[in-house]
């Protein structure tokens, strides 16, 4: 007997795009001084995101848009809930 298509595993999950990735950030004063061992040349912008505070998974982040000494432009954030640094295309 041929299995009915409804019974076959035809479900595939969608995935999130641009998930945050853990980052190695040196920030003694709270402002990033180096990302992945590369010194920060300048902080272009800084902003905070507080969202979903009404849920069991609130989001509280402090974002930094940085230019590294190599000339690379990166965005990192400090997750105030997890107390960890992440890298993400903002």
């Amino acid at each position, binding site marked *: 007997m041929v299995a009915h298509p409804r019974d076959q595993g*035809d479900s*595939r999950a*969608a995935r999130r*795009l641009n998930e945050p990735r853990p980052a190695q950030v040196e920030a003694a004063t709270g402002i990033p001084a180096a990302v992945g061992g590369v010194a920060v040349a300048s902080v272009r912008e800084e902003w905070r*995101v507080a969202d979903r505070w009404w849920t069991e998974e609130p989001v509280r982040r402090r974002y930094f848009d940085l230019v590294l000494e190599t000339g690379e432009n990166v965005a990192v954030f400090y997750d105030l809930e997890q107390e960890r640094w992440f890298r*993400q295309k903002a």
Partner: protein
Amino acid sequence: MVACLMIPAFTLRAALRGEPELRAKPVALAPVPGTQPLVGPCTGAAERAGVRPGMRLSEALATCPGLHLVEQDPAGVEAEWERILRRVEDAGLAVEPVQPGCAYFETRGIERLAGGVQAAVQRALDAVGEAWEPRVGVADRRFAALAAASVAPAGRALVVDDEETELFLAPLPLHLLPLGPDRREELSGLGIQKLGELARLPRAAVADRLGGEGAEAWRLAQGEGDGRVSPRRPPAEIGETLEFPEPVANELTLSRALAALLDRLLTREERGGRIPRRISVSAKLVGGGSWWRAATLREPTAEPARLQQALAPKLSELPAPAVELRLELGELTESVGTQSELVRPRGSRLRSRLREGLRQVRAAVGIDAVYTVVEVAPWSRIPETRAILVPRDD
């Protein structure tokens, strides 16, 4: 003979299939959001506590404060009913489904093979499974079969001989008749509570007072009516499901997800060029429960734009954010007779080249190598919730 297979309170039973411990408790099906606040079918414990199907929600809760309400699960109901029908069809019976929980079939074709009417009907009961507490009524006419099924004990069949039909129907209540509540109330006001009381009235008087609807009810109460069954063609259906990383309520996002699912469905190999006449969309909702809508197309089509047009407006009826969306193509017809296009639509060559390129990527890297970016909430302040990646098959 005509047999009527019945599973009472099927919608409630299907909704409780994941929580069997609730079956012994006072439970009722919650009203559909946006409709009249009336409770649906309820368990025996709820009925013993005074709750009745169709009662106002406030009254039901006042009557039975411990009443547990279960969310409607139309997609689950549809899927469970389809599974049951397929099992009955696998047992060699051609069924005509009327609604979830009620179907007719002819016993004649299988009586000799099974060894009699009772044995043929027992096949159907066994195929359904005793957990559903099915019952079957058998008679020469559909209405008598339905009436017999409504009084048959769980897991048993009741066979009514043609000569005894009128006698059998006489003491049964009027609610079995396909009459509107107004007409039923009118008859009740005249002191008519049983089918036999209606059958004893002169036909002309009933038709004069209640019109065509009343005349038809009188005919059924006499034990007359249709004795034919129009079995369905077992549907060949193919489906695709998309799980969202988080609940989605935005219509634009749902519409894009629908488009992605359509793309995937139409390229499924088992479709083999056949064209759907029916398309259905269902969703699992965020707080439990589900939602289901179907559209039957005037002409079968495999054009994504027309299928999208048929379904997209229904997405606005979604009562809560969805965590999963499922699309099914049904009643697939052969593509013979379809007029081919005289002029190829713009961009079709580019699309076929893209499809070929993607096929090569998939062959080289793996089946899950190609995704489509679907914007979910481009306005979100949280970057990872702005877009999702949907697997792509074409």
